[in-house]
């Protein structure tokens, strides 16, 4: 892909590359719309200064309502749903001159870690392990693969428990989860309302910051956004490490970093983070899936049914995929009988948040791997048990639970030749600090070189 702002010719080439790609990153394109937007952008530039994202091709995870486009959540439930309205964050992109390249693949409703739970089939990692089809990570697998393969300048994803960061780490690019509530969720199909964040995937920390600058900020249509000004994220990407006190936990990977850090042990805090996250996100997912019943929109069963209850069961069982059903049932269990289990996880969440608040009073940011392993082959994903897959998120869920900031940047290649990612994490509203450290780390890391470990 031609770097930066596209011309009509380069855009046509890009569209052609998208068509011929076998990564299965894109699940919907509308070349006429793309070209029309580019032409509009060129017209605009004839008498105006270029806007923040002028002419830049951006792929959109298929959880975002883009008006007039199929918005499927990669589920049979919404296979034929065409969004009648635009999400706030995508509208902000188009208002700054960005060009829509298409909708990209994901785990249905954002539930998954390897983009294997999609009616469109899995997305392939552009980098393969042992030459075999390899996981691009999830749930924003399509977003990551598109950017990593040069099929988009950047992509929007969503991050609920690591869904932007894990695929970014697996494909060797940058993935950002901002503070919860910084970016509006209006028009974003909900997975877990207290955890979902629109997120950004791009090739560099600065590119990520450029997109974040455009989409972030108060939206009166999302009651969880903040009515306060947004800092200058792009300016924070100086590449210079300031006097931040940086904590580092290698999570057993023994990876060494080329910047000064304080070694910490956060096992006690992380110990119950995964089950806490799973229970909360499943309970919220269960509730968010209640509206999918085919009555007003979406899939309706074609089989005969005896009564209303039967109709609901048939429609929802046929429309939802296996993983969605597992989450719904898990969530229902946590909420049944007076929601005792959910309540306990809710308390655990506050406990973790209190511990992390104390932690960040001492340290400015925390660095830890995005995952302790690199992308597996799709075959080995098939043989993983469900809870093995859930544990892929071990390093990412804590920052989600506290509503904090986390960015994954490529840290190098492991022994199998697969990229790995390292996260810079901070408390809510610490984007500036996190971007400063991340851009500084990015400067001194060579992402295509082998990772250095402690015993070497």
């Amino acid at each position: 892909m031609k770097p930066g702002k596209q011309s009509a010719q380069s855009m046509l080439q890009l569209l052609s590359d998208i068509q011929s790609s076998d990564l299965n990153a894109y699940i919907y394109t509308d070349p006429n719309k793309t070209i029309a937007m580019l032409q509009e952008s060129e017209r605009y530039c004839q008498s105006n200064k270029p806007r923040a994202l002028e002419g830049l091709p951006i792929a959109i995870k298929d959880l975002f309502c883009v008006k007039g486009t199929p918005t499927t959540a990669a589920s049979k439930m919404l296979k034929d749903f065409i969004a009648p309205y635009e999400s706030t964050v995508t509208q902000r992109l188009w208002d700054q001159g960005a060009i829509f390249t298409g909708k990209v693949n994901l785990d249905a409703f954002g539930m998954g870690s390897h983009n294997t739970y999609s009616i469109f089939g899995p997305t392939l990692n552009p980098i393969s392990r042992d030459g075999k089809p390899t996981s691009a990570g999830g749930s924003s697998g399509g977003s990551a693969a598109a950017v990593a393969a040069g099929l988009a300048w950047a992509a929007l994803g969503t991050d609920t428990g690591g869904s932007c960061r894990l695929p970014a780490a697996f494909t060797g690019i940058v993935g950002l989860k901002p503070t919860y509530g910084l970016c509006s969720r209006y028009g974003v199909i909900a997975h877990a309302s207290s955890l979902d964040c629109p997120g950004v995937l791009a090739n560099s920390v600065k590119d990520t910051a450029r997109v974040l600058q455009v989409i972030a900020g108060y939206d009166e249509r999302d009651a969880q956004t903040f009515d306060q000004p947004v800092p200058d994220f792009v300016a924070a990407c100086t590449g210079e490490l300031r006097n931040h006190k940086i904590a580092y936990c290698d999570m057993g990977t023994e990876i060494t970093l080329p910047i000064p850090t304080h070694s910490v042990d956060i096992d006690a805090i992380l110990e119950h983070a995964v089950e806490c996250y799973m229970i909360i996100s499943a309970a919220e997912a269960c509730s968010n899936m209640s509206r999918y019943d085919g009555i007003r929109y979406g899939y309706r069963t074609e089989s005969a049914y005896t009564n209303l209850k039967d109709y609901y069961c048939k429609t929802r069982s046929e429309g939802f995929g296996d993983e969605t059903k597992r989450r719904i049932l898990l969530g229902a269990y946590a909420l049944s009988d007076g929601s005792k289990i959910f309540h306990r996880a809710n308390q655990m969440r506050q406990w973790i948040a209190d511990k992390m608040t104390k932690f960040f009073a001492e340290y400015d940011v925390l660095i830890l791997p995005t995952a302790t392993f690199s992308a597996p082959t799709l075959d080995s994903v098939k043989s993983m048990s469900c809870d093995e897959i859930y544990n892929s998120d071990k390093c990412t869920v804590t920052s989600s639970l506290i509503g904090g900031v986390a960015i994954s940047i490529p840290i190098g290649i492991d022994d199998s030749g697969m990229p790995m990612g390292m996260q810079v994490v901070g408390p809510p509203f610490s984007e500036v600090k996190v971007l400063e450290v991340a851009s500084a780390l990015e400067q001194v890391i060579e992402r295509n070189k082998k990772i250095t470990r402690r015993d070497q």
Partner: protein
Amino acid sequence: MNRVTKLCAIVGLSDNDAKIHAQIDKIVDVLIDKIYQADLDAEYPIWLGVKGPKPLRKDISKEGDPTLIAQVCKHSHENFVLAPKSFTAKENK
């Protein structure tokens, strides 16, 4: 298997997917075990969200969009949404 069947009825899912049921049963036991292992005070406060200025919506009404039904609903009649009939009181006896 019984508890999963009961949950299926509550959330509107068919209870004939044995494989998923087995998976859920396993996951549930593991997760529940783990969350109760934690040494957590029974009265510990709950998470209330990220704090910050979040004003309430002003009471200004806007016109609805009557075209929404036509745009998204495939089962409508004169702008009513059509739903399968539920039991009526008469049918109950």
